[in-house]
């Protein structure tokens, strides 16, 4: 398992007041890293390969304005090998759009949930089904997107504390 992803990307210095406070929240940080692995590199990825997951996460991190987090996910994408290099061009940056209908629907939904979740409706789930996304993959996609949005906010919140405490 990768460890201390949030602390590393947020740049929390050892011995800082935040680092000391987080010693009381070690279980939360550990479960956050375990969640990262559960949505980025699950044992049973279903219809969302590890490469697609890394590419989507990199794209979300860009929407979320976090270069360091986007860099982390682009590294995971490179580690996914040749499958990753196509996705780096078609999925991993917000300017790109994949041609494949199913993948395009997946990207559209990840964008919606990242940028404007309040606008999501039953029709958006129907659009995924119509593009051939299985129900179990809709849940997997939602968990992945929701997790990256959680992680980016923990990082942004912790960064805002640096030099302030």
């Amino acid at each position, binding site marked *: 398992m990768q460890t201390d992803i949030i602390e590393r990307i947020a740049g929390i210095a050892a011995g800082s007041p935040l680092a*000391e406070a987080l010693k009381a929240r070690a*279980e939360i940080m550990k479960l956050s890293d375990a969640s990262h692995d559960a949505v980025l590199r699950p044992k049973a990825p279903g219809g969302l390969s590890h490469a697609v997951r890394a590419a989507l996460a990199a794209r979300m991190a860009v929407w979320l*304005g976090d270069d360091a987090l986007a860099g982390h996910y682009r590294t995971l994408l490179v580690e996914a090998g040749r499958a990753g290099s196509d996705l780096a061009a078609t999925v991993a940056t917000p300017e790109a759009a994949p041609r494949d209908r199913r993948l395009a629907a997946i990207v559209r939904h990840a964008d919606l949930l990242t*940028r404007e*979740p309040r606008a*999501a409706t039953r029709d958006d789930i129907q659009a995924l089904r119509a593009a051939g996304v299985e129900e179990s993959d809709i849940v997997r996609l939602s968990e992945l997107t*929701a997790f990256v949005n959680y*992680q980016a906010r923990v990082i942004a919140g912790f960064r*805002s504390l640096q*030099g302030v405490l």
Partner: protein
Amino acid sequence: MSEPVQNSPVHEFTAEPLQWVPYLTPVRLEEATPEQLDAMKVTPSNKKVSDYVLTLAHDPESLAVRSPLFNAIMYGRDGLSRAERELGAVGASIVNHCVYCASVHAAQFNRLTERTDVIERIFADGAAAELEEHQQVIFDFAVKLSETPPAVTHEDAAVLRDCGLSALEIADLVLSAAIFGWANRLMHTLGEPRRPPAKPAA
């Protein structure tokens, strides 16, 4: 067993109890795999599982870690008070317009603080609600953190510090608002809230 008649979806914020109805087909408990049962914490003595958990059981690996993470963030010892964590949750749920999450955590806040006026003001005025100073800085931080991209700055963190919040309390606020950046993106997008069916007259 016949299905109860469903009421129409609720789009306005309320602290009344709501029912959550999924857009997807939940996993059937009798067909669940051992991994799904484990992720749902189903045991011979605990077979009550909500439609929300049965829907998330389609991805047992993430459900198995998210449930303990959620509980640790919302119910962990020390640091930010239970009520103030609920206020962080409500702030996120307002931005993301998750009516179901807002109802559950507004009710928790009301129960813990034994007052309803704070939530009434938030439901009336949304992210612009004006509150007492301590609650205001907590609510405002949760709202800013919930935007995309997150909008919190060092100045926002300094406001919390100057209001007397400790490092652990601020970390807890970050975590409680952020975990609703996760929960809202499931509950608001995978289903919808409805008023529970009226109970038959006794």
